[in-house]
């Protein structure tokens, strides 16, 4: 096989073993380009036709001190020949670019797993920085693993020599050497990566050349070094026919918003302030100005939501994107939107809290904040996405509800969904739901003298939504604000009975949305007494755990919530069918608390707050424990 003028050795000469799934973790310094390497491996695997799931894991510091544990950045990808739900509990393969990367990630590696180390980085200095007293490559501590020591730095320098690049610059291509080597090990196609390198680094030809040479050197090293017994293949997954793309949650949300704007025939206005892990939505939406999308990087979180609300008053689809700390700052403005009853979408990409917490890590601890976190009686609908690609549909659903019911809606995603990716079969545009957002253009009432007037709070009797008349419409001039409004004129009212009436009406409007959302579906199993209830990004781990438990002969039912406020109308009845309900969530028990309060059921939280998604095995253990306790109760 010849690629780009340099020959690549043909893997066909090596024995090939077939695997159904492999989990690889690339780990190195924050500056080593591990996210890029993982991303690239993912892309070629997607194009090759594998199902896949990814888990980037990087520190909040842009460049923590090189060689230290704090600076380790990792990217885990699982590829399979079948449908998979998670990026895998434990890697089979760890690529460690330095001692710190080895030390930080070894504990997660499957026992007996494979380690590829850049042996050049295992010098005294780096070992000390990583806190190793002895070199783990020589002290037998890795005896339980298959370790390949590869001089990645020196081979990269050697390979890049023809470019004339300074060693310090050429050395930075070593991640492509690693990518080349792993690409050989797992028989990934190479042409696409070489093209990608040429395009990505087109402005710096020397870097492009040195990356390409390092990539090829890594690939050829696998074939010729006689270090490896065999290469592996993971065959393509059987997918439903269609066009696929690999998508992250944040991109899916951005595209979902663009789509929703088109479906509702409303121009999108995003007011946002940069915050991890939400900023990529701002970046992505900023590119799509030809859709009429306006993006504004505001002076702060409050201005971001304020501008979005101002745009909503003007008849635009007002959106703000943020993470937990930003939601708190926006709370007062969200309350204003509740009170004025204007459509607004607030997107919370949850991260570890409280306070600055773990900015780059995932958590689901903003659920109670989203549902209840405003002063006064201030209910609003809350929607949560469950997978990266589901973020697209969740964004459309949030917009549908906001626009139809003239209410702010909070959409919850999290760091895991935001940066994780999965293959997504592109939906047909004509299959997307319709969003109707008619503006009121005529007076809807008369005053005492019989003259036509506009009554901004005269509601639709079915939805209880108020009319939406936008500035520029003659004859419908009106004032709204945060002070309590007289029904239906919207004028300021301090009347006690009117206030209670308005509080109850706003609550009834939101509660009534339950009639307009699908019932929660249960993946039931005949005879199951245990229900695993989830919401948001735990979907994959719960699904994998339930499948494994069933494979082990256990009876378990599973249900997953997209709508957290209001709950689907049938949820209470569903919960009552099971003797025990467990709720795995990345918090200390927020959904479990809500369903206990709402339905008086004995729902029990399965909590994890480590900034990392659940492993399927952790949920499986919780399932086993719940089933055992049910059995022992039955025996007693």
């Amino acid at each position, binding site marked *: 096989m010849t690629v780009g003028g340099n020959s690549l050795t043909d893997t066909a000469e090596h024995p090939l073993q077939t695997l159904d799934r492999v989990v690889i973790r690339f780990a190195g310094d924050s500056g080593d380009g591990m996210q890029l390497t993982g991303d690239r491996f993912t*892309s070629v695997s*997607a*194009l090759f*036709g594998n199902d896949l799931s990814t888990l980037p894991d990087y520190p909040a510091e842009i460049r923590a001190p090189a060689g230290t544990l704090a600076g380790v950045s990792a990217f885990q990808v699982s590829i399979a020949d079948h449908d998979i739900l998670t990026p895998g509990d434990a890697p089979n393969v760890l690529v460690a670019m330095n001692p710190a990367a080895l030390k930080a990630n070894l504990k997660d590696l499957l026992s007996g797993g494979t380690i590829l180390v850049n042996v050049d980085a295992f010098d005294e200095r780096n070992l000390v920085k990583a806190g190793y007293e002895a070199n783990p490559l020589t002290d037998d501590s890795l005896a339980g693993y298959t370790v390949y020591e590869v001089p990645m730095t020196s081979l990269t320098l050697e390979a890049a020599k023809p470019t004339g690049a300074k060693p310090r610059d050429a050395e930075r291509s070593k991640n492509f050497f690693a990518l080349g080597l792993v690409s050989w090990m797992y028989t990934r196609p190479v042409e696409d990566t070489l093209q990608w390198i040429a395009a990505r680094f087109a402005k710096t030809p020397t870097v492009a050349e040195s990356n390409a040479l390092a990539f090829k050197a890594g690939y050829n090293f696998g074939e010729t070094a006689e270090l490896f017994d065999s290469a592996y293949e993971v065959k393509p997954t059987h997918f439903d*026919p*269609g*066009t*696929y*793309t*690999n*998508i992250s949650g944040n991109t899916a949300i951005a*595209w979902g918003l*663009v*789509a929703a704007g*088109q479906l509702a025939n409303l121009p999108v*206005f995003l*007011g946002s302030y940069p915050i991890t892990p939400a900023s990529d939505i701002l970046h992505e939406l900023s590119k*799509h*100005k*030809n*859709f*009429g*999308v*306006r993006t*504004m990087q*505001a*002076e702060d979180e*409050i*201005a971001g939501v*304020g*501008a*979005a*609300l*101002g*745009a909503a*008053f*003007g*008849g*635009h689809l*007002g959106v703000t994107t943020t993470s937990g700390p930003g939601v708190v700052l926006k709370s*007062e*403005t969200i309350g204003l939107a509740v009170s*004025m009853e204007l459509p607004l979408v607030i997107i919370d990409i949850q991260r570890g809290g409280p306070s600055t917490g773990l900015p780059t890590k995932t958590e689901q601890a903003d659920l109670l904040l989203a549902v209840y976190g405003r002063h006064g009686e201030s209910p609003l609908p809350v929607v949560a996405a469950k997978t990266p690609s589901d973020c697209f549909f969740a964004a459309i659903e949030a917009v549908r509800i906001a626009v139809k019911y003239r209410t702010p809606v909070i959409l919850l995603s999290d760091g895991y969904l935001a940066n994780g990716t999965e293959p997504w*079969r*592109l*939906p047909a*545009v004509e299959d997307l739901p319709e969003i109707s957002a008619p503006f009121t253009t005529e007076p809807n009432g008369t005053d005492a003298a019989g003259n036509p007037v506009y009554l901004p709070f005269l509601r639709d009797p079915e939805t209880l939504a108020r009319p939406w008349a936008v*500035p*520029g419409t*003659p004859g*419908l*001039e*009106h*004032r*709204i*604000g*945060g*002070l309590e409004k007289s029904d239906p004129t919207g*004028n*300021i009212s301090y009347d006690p009975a009117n206030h209670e009436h308005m509080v109850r009406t706003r609550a009834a409007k939101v509660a009534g949305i339950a009639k307009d959302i699908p019932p929660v579906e249960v993946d039931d199993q005949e005879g199951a007494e245990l229900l695993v209830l989830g919401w948001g990004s735990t979907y994959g781990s719960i699904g994998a755990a339930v499948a494994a438990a069933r494979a082990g002969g256990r009876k378990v039912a599973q249900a997953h919530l997209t709508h957290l406020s209001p709950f689907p109308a049938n949820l209470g009845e569903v919960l009552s069918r099971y003797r025990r309900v467990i709720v795995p969530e990345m918090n200390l028990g927020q959904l479990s608390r809500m369903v206990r309060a709402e339905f008086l059921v004995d729902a029990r939280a399965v909590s994890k707050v480590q900034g990392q998604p659940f492993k399927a095995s952790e949920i499986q253990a919780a399932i086993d424990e719940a089933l055992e306790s049910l059995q022992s109760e039955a025996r007693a």
Partner: protein
Amino acid sequence: MTDVAPPTTKKDWSSDQEVRWCPGCGDYSILTAVQMLMPELNVRRENTVFVSGIGCSSRFPYYMNTYGMHSIHGRAPAIATGLAVARPDLDVWVITGDGDGLSIGGNHLIHALRRNVNLTILLFNNQIYGLTKGQYSPTSEVGKVTKSTPFGSVDWPFNPLSLALGAEATFVARTHDLDRKHMMETFRRAHEHKGAAFVEIFQNCNVFNDGAFEQITAKDNRSHMLIPLEHGRPIRFGPDGEKGVALDGQGRAAIVNVADVGEDALVVHDEKRPEPGLAFMLTRLSHGPYEPTPIGVFRAVERPTYGDQIQRQLLDAQSRSGPGDLAKLLSSGSTWEV
């Protein structure tokens, strides 16, 4: 084709809501000035929006028969920015006060000014918190005794115009609530300005800070204490124009006797100077409403507005890549067929 709005009267611009400011409040005369000005501006009620924050002055939108929003404390400039950017066809006014605009909402105000959002911002400065019943504000003088400062305030006050010029606002002016003609003229200029127009209005709170501006705005004091700024004219004041403003040997603006320095030494007011430095110096002539104080338009320069530039980027993107095509967007990453 110029759009000619149907003729209106003050009554058309007044809502049916009872005005609930304290009797004698300076806000009444400002409301009247705005309601009287609107029929002269060739604008339509349906295209006019008043956005306010919280405070006595922020009830203003309820009294205008236009679109309006009485929002939350300090946030009116941010909300109005979104509205003005989304809807460049609208005429958006912001009504705020010294507490609302300079304390809790100071950040939004300076950013709206630096971005040059197309807004007409009226800041009612009464140097006190009225709605919360009499605490000192960010424009109260040092030593001010209020409910929250029984031993006198130790806060150094903001000069609102210095702040606006520091943010490089493109239009900066000052007027006061006892001179309707001057208010209307100043508001008219502010409204005509394309971009962020900032007007400070000295406004009397007759309940909690009565007479705060009397030393300079009372009829008998004006000719001595108010320095009218007129574009292209030497800056002079006094009953017979005997005083003026000149630059001293160190380049500082100072009040002088015209007889001492000669008319040629006076500063000729130029509101179109690109650099805000001299306008800033004029705002520093007075340290409070007890010294001769300039009023009128300090600065009126042209700079592209925020909304126009955003609009331009949208149009450029559409002419470059055509209108958005959703199916094309979804397949814009690397895709594969199964």
